[in-house]
């Protein structure tokens, strides 16, 4: 198991580093939101999913796509806008998809795929399968009304959903403090009013993520309903593009080095 997790993380890291290295050639003409630093989240969660389960992502989803087993070649082809890309060259970086492994797609609208995961989970239930649906989203996505609406619906019907919040502390250049009141800072607790268990884990500790996700997936498969996983992590590159962004002044090199 450890080797599997390590392999997944390494794949994500090496792939993203390759994107960063090749990007300045200006042949990948698509805005890239790199996953470097956050690998343990997707690796730890997806190691618990089967290819008959479902996963959906956000604008920053090279990681969850690859961790779920999405084709590496098709990802790079997509970044180059080629016909053999995972989205036939029509989507670009923000639109990873590989339905053959249950990766249903990603949205460039923050929060856009959260209710879709609830729908995939409900569909799995209605069709009598034991599939679960995981949705990966950032810490800012919980500010959208649709997040709370989706929690309500998933709890109401005890649907097999994993809400996976990749809390990297920032939305573009804005830290959490000016966006969410301190009392709400624990995103894991957002499910409490709906009776959804919330777990906060060190999102940089792949074993911790794996364990928490295993519990959540088991619960979901048994019909016990959704779980909200808050994975505390950190994005190493700028919000978008292959470069560091400390020159913008919203976070310091010291913070990045920690």
């Amino acid at each position, binding site marked *: 198991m450890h080797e599997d997790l390590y392999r997944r993380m390494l794949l994500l890291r090496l792939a993203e580093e390759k994107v960063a290295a090749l*990007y300045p050639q*200006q042949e990948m*003409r*698509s*805005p890239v939101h790199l996953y470097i630093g956050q690998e343990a989240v997707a690796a730890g969660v997806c190691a618990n999913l089967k290819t008959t389960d479902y996963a959906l992502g956000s604008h920053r989803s090279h990681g969850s796509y690859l961790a779920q087993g999405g084709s590496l070649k098709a990802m790079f082809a997509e970044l*180059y*806008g*080629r016909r053999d*890309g995972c*989205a036939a*060259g*029509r*989507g*670009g*970086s*923000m*639109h990873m998809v590989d339905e053959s492994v249950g990766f249903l797609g990603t*949205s*460039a*609208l*923050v*929060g*856009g795929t959260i209710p879709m995961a609830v729908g995939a989970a409900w569909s799995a239930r209605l069709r009598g399968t034991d599939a679960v649906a995981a949705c990966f989203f950032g810490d*800012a*996505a919980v*500010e*959208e*009304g649709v997040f709370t609406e989706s929690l309500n619906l998933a709890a109401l019907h005890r649907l097999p959903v994993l809400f996976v919040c990749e809390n990297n502390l920032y*939305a*573009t*250049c*804005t830290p959490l403090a*000016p*966006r*969410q009141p301190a009392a709400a800072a624990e995103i894991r607790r957002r499910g409490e009013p709906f009776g959804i268990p919330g777990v906060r884990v060190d999102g940089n500790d792949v074993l911790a993520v794996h364990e928490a996700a295993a519990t959540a997936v088991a619960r979901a498969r048994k019909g016990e309903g959704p779980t909200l996983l808050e994975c505390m992590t950190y994005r190493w590159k700028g919000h*978008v*593009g292959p470069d560091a962004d400390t020159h*913008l*002044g*919203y976070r310091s090199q010291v913070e990045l080095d920690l």
Partner: protein
Amino acid sequence: MPERQITYAEALREAQHQMLAEFPNLVVMGLGVPDPGGVFGSTKDLHKDFPTRALDLPLSEEANAGVANGMALTGMRVINVHQRVDFLLVCANQIVNHSAKWRYMFGSEAAMPVVYRAVIGRGWGQGAQHSQSLHSLFAHIPGFSVVMPATAGDAKGLLIQAVRAGQPCLVLEHRNLYGIKGEVPEKPYATPFGKARLVREGRHATAVAVSQMVAEAEKAAEILAKEGVELEILDARSIRPLDEEAILASVRKTGALVACDTSWAFCGFSAELAALVAEKAFRDLKAPVARVALPPIPTPSGPVLEAAYYPNALTIAAETRRILGRRGEAPSVSITNERSQRESW
């Protein structure tokens, strides 16, 4: 003395700065307003001069737009900024069902000073969800104005008019125009809504263009001029209210309309223009209406598809020749308008 030249982004910023000074009750708010980048430069450092009135907001578009409505009902003026018009669909309920209808619905004529600013994206593979041009959708709604500045001068003038007028409206900007310089008087001035801008006079056909397509129409006019075809160009700049008078007068003169839109043809702004001349200038038409618009598919991301997706000056020239029944020269140069910088989204 020649006027000062500044960029479209700087013009937007200056307009907001001047309006914040003119109206002590004005708030400029939106995701990223006080960011280092300042919404592609258009709100840069406003918070330094107006710390309590240039505000960041959470990623909660529907709430943000509704908060703007609530402020507008209670003595404030609001500019609510969005980095893409695609995101306005998240708050369409507050805009379409609330902003646009509130006063009418309650039998009131009072002001409802909410201005939504949003940007049309284009280029660098940003794709289907970041490069729509949704003016027709919002202009469909009574009680709501939609303007689309094509120049730095109009970016400032139309935004100032939007704030001063105090009625719900959308100022729809184009990302590709942000870096383009134009003459912009330093003092605050308002460009009225519902008045088209005559860009170029001509006798043979009228191009009614908006936003980024105005520059393409100008290039097309240059190409056609060499062939002896004079294209008149009107920058509609105000989608609703629409300057019907100016458009009809021009089409009556030339007898031909080439509608040049940044969006799709079906149920779009170009369809509205076609309907207008069919209803009110039918007997003056000497040629069928041409519509230069996007192909009826979402924006593809790959560079080859993306380049093929957008009509340009050559398309406008070709369509003009087609309806005038003229043969044209094969294009010798390829004209593209893609920003090739990766900073572009």
